[in-house]
C-alpha cells in the first residue's frame, strides 16, 4: 500500500471527512511531510471507492460549495489494520536489529 493511501485511510479512521479535511489531516498525521494535491487525492479517493475500502458519507453545501464526506468501510478498516500491523512488525525488526548492533538508541 502506498503511503498516501495509508495516510488517507488513517485520516478516515478517525471519522468521516471531506476532501479538504483529509488534506489538512494527512499533513498533520505525517508531521507536515505529505501534502496531498487535489488531483492526486481524488484519483486515490475514486480508486478506494471502487475497491470499496471507503464510501461517500454525506454531502453539505457550505458557501455555495459542495462538500462530500467520505468514511471508512468495514473492509477499509480491515485493510488498514492489516497494513498497520505489517508496518509495525517491519519497523520492530529494523529497530531491534539496529539496537542490537549498537548503531542507534531506540528508547
Amino acid at each position: 500500500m502506498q503511503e498516501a493511501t495509508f495516510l488517507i485511510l488513517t485520516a478516515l479512521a478517525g471519522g468521516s471527512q471531506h476532501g479538504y479535511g483529509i488534506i489538512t489531516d494527512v499533513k498533520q498525521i505525517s508531521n507536515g511531510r505529505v501534502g496531498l494535491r487535489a488531483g492526486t487525492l481524488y484519483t486515490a479517493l475514486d480508486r478506494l471507492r471502487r475497491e470499496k475500502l471507503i464510501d461517500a458519507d454525506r454531502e453539505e453545501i457550505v458557501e455555495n460549495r459542495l462538500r462530500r464526506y467520505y468514511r471508512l468501510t468495514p473492509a477499509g478498516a480491515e485493510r488498514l489494520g492489516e497494513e498497520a500491523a505489517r508496518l509495525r512488525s517491519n519497523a520492530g525488526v529494523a529497530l531491534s536489529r539496529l539496537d542490537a548492533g549498537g548503531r542507534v538508541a531506540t528508547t
Partner: protein
Amino acid sequence: MTASTDLERRYRRLLALYPRAFRREHEQEMLSVLLAGAAEGQRRPRLAEAVDLLANAILMRVLVLTLIKPSAWEYRHARVMVPVRVMIGIWLIVLTAIFYGSGRGGWWGLLLLPAAGLHFYFAYRIRHAVPS
C-alpha cells in the same frame, strides 16, 4: 473580474481535462478543495497544482481506455464474433503491410496496428469468456 472568479475559471479549465464520468462525480467537490486551498487574492493555480491536475487527468483517461470491453451481445454470439474479430485483425495487419510496401507505412501502422491489437484482444476475451 474578482480574483476568486478568475481563479475558479482557471481551475474549471483544468478540471475539464478529466473524463466526463469522473467530472460528473468529482468536479464540484474538487473545485471546493482547490478553492479552499487557495491563498487570499490568488488569481492563478500554482504550477505544481496545475501539473498534478494534468497528470491525474491523463491517468484517469488512460484508466477509462482500459475499461473498454466487448458488449454482452458479443459474448452471446462468440461463435461468430471470435472469427470476425480475428479476421478484421489479420486484415488490418495485411493492410499495414500493403501500405508499408507502397512506402506509406509509418503513420498508417501507428493507427492500424493498435486497432488490430484491440480486435485480437476482444477476440481473446470473448473466446475465453473473460468476465468484465
